[in-house]
């Protein structure tokens, strides 16, 4: 297992480098010049502008500039946010927990919905339950997150007045009261993200379980007299989950889009809403850093999926 993990980690390095190249190229191709204002300012003599450009290496070849940028990023020197007046890495570290909490809980909730529904649909294919689940799944992944969010606010905050629609980090109280308030304010954002994920996962789980239950070893398990429950849970589901993990990992990048929208709707102070507010405030270092963090998160979750994959399918782990 340890060697497998190490190999996976090594495979992640080129992807991270690739992503950093893409980000840097986008930034380098973008028109606009950080010293453009200096050049047009008549009070600054052109020699000073040229000296500054030389000092920061703006006229160097692009490969050199990339290497310098990359080494700065690796040293944790992510720049300074002029809007928030603090270092970019501190700012992101402040915001990251909220995002991870919302994404993590939504994944768990989605799994809790998708797994039973998908398996039950596949065990009784073309039953009424299956048809309804299929229809709901289609509705679920056709509902854009921003619309689900607004619908939830309309229903639960405005008409029923059960849940608050603004997320607060400074809820008072302690112990159970705090947990209850936290639960109430995260319920809607988590549910919005979870429904989107659960909808497509249900379909993956269903088709995968259907496929596996046709295999010979399942017939063998039945033939030797195992109760149906055992057959499904111990023999079918575990093997059916292997392709599902791959598909889930492929969906990861899209999930972060949903997280950005959700954070924006419910005003959750995570890195998604940080991204939007820094775009509106033209805070380029923060925009670059948040995009990079999102890309790293995708890779991290892919890594987790790989580990899960190795656990589900021992043949892979020991290869």
């Amino acid at each position, binding site marked *: 297992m340890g060697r497998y993990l190490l190999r996976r980690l090594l495979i992640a390095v080129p992807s991270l480098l690739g992503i950093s190249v893409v980000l840097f190229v986008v930034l380098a191709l973008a028109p606009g010049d950080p010293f453009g204002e200096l050049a047009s300012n008549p009070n600054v003599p052109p020699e000073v502008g040229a000296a500054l450009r030389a000092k920061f290496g703006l006229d160097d070849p692009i490969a050199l500039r990339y290497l310098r940028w990359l080494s700065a990023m690796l040293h944790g020197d992510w720049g300074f946010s002029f809007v928030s007046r603090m270092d970019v890495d501190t700012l992101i570290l402040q915001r990251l927990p909220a995002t991870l909490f919302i994404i993590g809980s939504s994944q768990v909730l989605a799994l809790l919905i998708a797994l039973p529904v998908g398996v039950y649909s596949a065990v009784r294919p073309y039953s009424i339950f299956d048809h309804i689940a299929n229809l709901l799944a289609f*509705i679920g992944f056709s*509902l*854009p997150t921003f619309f689900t969010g607004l619908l939830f606010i309309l229903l639960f905050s405005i008409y029923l007045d059960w849940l608050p629609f603004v997320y607060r980090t400074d809820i008072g109280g302690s112990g159970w009261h705090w947990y209850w308030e936290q639960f109430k304010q995260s319920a809607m954002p988590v549910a919005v993200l979870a429904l989107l994920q659960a909808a497509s996962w249900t379909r993956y789980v269903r088709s995968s379980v259907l496929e596996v239950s046709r295999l010979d070893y399942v017939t063998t398990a039945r033939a030797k007299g195992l109760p149906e429950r055992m057959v499904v849970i111990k023999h079918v589901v575990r093997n059916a989950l292997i392709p599902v993990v791959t598909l889930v990992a492929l969906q990861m*990048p899209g999930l972060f889009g949903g997280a950005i929208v959700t954070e924006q709707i419910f005003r959750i102070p995570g890195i998604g809403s940080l991204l939007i507010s820094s775009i509106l405030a033209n805070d380029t270092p923060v925009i670059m850093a948040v*995009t990079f963090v999102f890309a790293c998160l*995708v890779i991290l979750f892919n890594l987790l999926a790989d580990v899960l994959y190795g656990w589900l399918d021992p043949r892979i782990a020991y290869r």
Partner: protein
Amino acid sequence: MAERGSPAGEIWRRFRRHKLAVASAVILALMALAVAFGPLLWRVPINDIDFSSHLEGPSWNHPFGTDDLGQDLLARMLYGGRISLAVGLAAMLVAVTVGTAIGAIAGMSRGSIDAALMWLTDLFLSLPPLPLLLLVIYLFREPLTKLVGLELGTFILIVVVIGGFRWMQVARLVRAQFLTLREKEFVEAARALGMTSLRLVIRHILPNSLGPIIVAGTIDVAAAIIAESTLSFLGLGFPPDIPTWGRILFDAKDYLDIAPHWALFAGGAIFLAVLSINFIGDGLRDAMDPRTQA
């Protein structure tokens, strides 16, 4: 009625059995007709400000109600729907063109070119699309709008960027199709007759791999509509005077408590369009996949 046996007729016969897909096709056609010809019939200007009737619910004068400036929502939605659907179609065309080209090159060439292109595809698949969309739009919006004007500039930018982050699925599908098709006897026969590779691809291989491309393209339209609406909903897509459905929703979200109709009509339109397209894609997949023979 197409005769049985012709491939198109066969697909149509099977597509018709998917009731939800047929119903969706009808709904989508009605929506397309409405946004195409609606503004000719419903001649209320989209930016007619009338504070005496602002935030009104649906009525005979304003079937979809009005917004905070008293502008007629039906007119705005018909006009904005054109943009929303056009962005979806155009971005799909970009994605399918790029994806087919890359997939075809990778599928026809062996060795390092194939490996490099697939590495690129995998890399793009692991990029988070929305943050990058936002980044690219943030960096390139102003210069491009200076070049070709605000509306056209935003349209081109959004279409290219959304399409540019959605070609990977198509590329993989096309490559997989090409890998199997290029070893088939009919392709070999054509090659033995002296056909050039390019002609071979255009005449024989590509037409035979159209099915999965069409299905993926259909789903891409839905995804592109959602992507555009998301950008507009975040306030970073089209400018306020171009009321795409996402933009209407962005403006409506602060009036959710007093004028819910405003958000519901816009969000409902996006949802209905996306849902129908997804069902049509599902129907097409069933109809074109020879394994679901019945």
